[in-house]
């Protein structure tokens, strides 16, 4: 490929400047501040700081509520990621068939992604709330959101549903790019539909699956506090209190700035770690064309 070049050697830097200035102001500086503050005690009003070393981190890891929240987050993330990827792949496969009105179904399935978490939360509250929830009415069980185990189930369901559209769009694109001749060749060689799916389609969409795995992990860890705030407020008795929700409460409601910063540091490290492991273990099984 021909490499284009700039005659002026400063020009590339000037062109990069707008992007980098935005990144620095809105990304690097705030992230750096969060990390720095995790080593301080901070007055929530004046912002006065006192260096506290590992005080906040020690507090976090000696707090049994935080540790149980840690485990809950893991359960939540695994459920949302695995459940979400399987369901959206199935739906994408169905949508990829030549059926009447596929475009309509596609739009309908992508819709939930366009909803804000607050609206999605309100919808699920409508379905599952203990007083007048429709699901409660039909199942005869009112306690969907007031029992710890089922509350987690509802939250997982809501979070998975909310992100289906995103996953489906990407899976559809990947499915469209599976070369038809490979599938036809396999069919001629006598491979059944399951064999064709697992040996050919799945292999071709594995880079997309990997991408979605990473994105969904990030989604599960970082983007679900809106739903939880509307549906359960982390309850009953902390059973849906995942890390990001606790972090949101500690910073925005409880004004424990140093502590919240330390929580964000832990969460960041955790997700970086998970992503790193995913790259190390899963990427080897991914085939790029």
């Amino acid at each position: 490929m021909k490499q284009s070049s700039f005659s002026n050697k400063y020009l590339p830097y000037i062109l990069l400047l707008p992007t980098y200035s935005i990144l620095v102001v809105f990304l690097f500086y705030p992230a750096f501040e969060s990390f720095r503050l995790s080593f301080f005690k901070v007055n929530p009003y004046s912002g006065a700081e006192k260096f506290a070393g590992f005080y906040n981190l020690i507090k976090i890891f000696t707090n049994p509520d935080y540790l149980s929240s840690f485990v809950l987050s893991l359960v939540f993330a695994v459920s949302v990621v695995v459940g979400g990827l399987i369901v959206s792949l199935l739906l994408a496969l169905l949508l990829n068939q030549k059926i009447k009105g596929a475009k309509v179904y596609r739009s309908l399935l992508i819709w939930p992604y366009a909803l804000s978490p607050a609206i999605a939360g309100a919808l699920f509250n409508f379905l599952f709330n203990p007083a007048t929830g429709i699901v409660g009415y039909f199942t005869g069980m009112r306690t969907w959101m007031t029992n710890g185990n089922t509350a987690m189930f509802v939250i997982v369901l809501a979070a998975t549903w909310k992100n289906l559209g995103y996953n489906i769009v990407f899976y559809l694109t990947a499915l469209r790019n599976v070369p038809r001749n490979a599938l036809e060749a396999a069919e001629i060689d006598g491979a059944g539909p399951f064999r064709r799916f697992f040996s050919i389609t799945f292999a071709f969409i594995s880079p997309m699956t990997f991408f979605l795995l990473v994105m969904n992990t990030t989604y599960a860890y970082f983007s679900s506090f809106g739903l939880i705030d509307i549906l359960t407020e982390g309850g009953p008795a902390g059973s849906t209190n995942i890390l990001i929700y606790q972090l949101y409460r500690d910073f925005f409601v409880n004004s424990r700035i140093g502590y919240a910063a330390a929580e964000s540091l832990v969460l960041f490290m955790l997700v970086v770690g998970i992503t790193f492991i995913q790259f190390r273990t899963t990427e080897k099984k991914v085939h790029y064309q």
Partner: protein
Amino acid sequence: MKKLVLVFFVLLLSISFISANASEDAAVDVDKAAPVTIEFWHAMSGTRIDLIQSIADDFMAENPNITVEVQYAGSYNDTLNKVISAVKGGNPPSVFHSYEIGTLGLINSGMIMPLDEAAVKYDLPIAWDDFFVPVQSYYKYQGQHYSMPFNSSTPLIFYNKTLFEKAGLDPENPPKTYEEIRAAAVKLKASGIDTPVTWNLHSWYFEQMICLQDAPFVNTSNGRGSELPTEVVFNSAAGNKVLDWWIGMYNDGLFMDVGPGWSNHRAAFGAGEVAMVMSSSSDVNLLTASLAEKGWEMGTGFIPRPDGATGGVAIGGGSLWMTNNHSPEEELAALKLVQYISSDVPQMAWHKGTGYFPVRKTAMEKLEKEGWFVENPNYLTAFDQLLVSPETLNTAGSLLGVFPETRSIIQSSIQECYAGKPVSEALDEAAAKVNALIAEWNEVIGL
């Protein structure tokens, strides 16, 4: 590796919202010349935005040289966070709205102009005697009023008169004590309502029912002494009494757990799933209307107390605060604005438009003369409940820096009790957690 770097940035973006919030408020130039412009940030959503705007418009019509820029700044929490950021950025609003539980924090925040101090400085005294006792005593700290009471409410019992009658209960005589509520619930259950009583999971009711027993919630004179409180005392006999009764009704299938938030218990009441709820007095309009849809009649009563308890309700809601470090012209304009909002005419409009009660006795008397209570008898209950409230440090309401988190902890404990944990154990554990937070808060607030 490139992808790893990309993912790293995505993650970075995801967490950077934490301090990005600090820089999100728009800067507004404050004109220091004769016509003065001040900002007023409030936390009331929906139709209340227009109502507050119209109150501000009336104020500007009376004070043509003052321009008030009214902004809805989100929830109480959002508003408070934005104000704190704006103070750091050097552009705070002159007046902002905060919830009652933020009071002790704001008093110690160093960004506040105490209201009484401003009133003396500009020689515009406030007739505190005109205010309802629980209203003005809540916002008074060690003899000084720090903020102007604005939207005030207390909890009330709301009951479905039609369903009461069906169950053989007297619809004109609501239950008043723990035992009476329980007895009524048993009768309602017998009449076919599966779980006849509910209220939303909110620590506010627990706090109020401790006030009703004239017991403190925190030490150092309920947080109003010369020292900052160092521990909570809600795990006292009074606190245990409240939860023993509450959880007992739950265990006997008389009380429906509808979870947190403000919509589920209202919906249950409106649908006739329950016949009795506790909710904010500002819900009178809403609940009356939702029962009327089904042709049912609604009654209101005082919130229940154990036999012989002598306390009263404490006020809930919010107040208006002035920030410091403004020019004298702006401070004066801000003072005039908060004084105007608490005067009779806007308070009456506010009451009629929202259901929050007016903070002044004079406004109530005017409403009475208009015949407002003849048309809306249920509004009177909240006033009566306030008027019989004795003035003590306990019924003034407790002050605590870590109140928002305390509420989550108490709510979590109540849910643990629903799941079977003994009340006294749950309350002791909750108190221990809060005490650790208080020690931490007392340290950082001194920084």
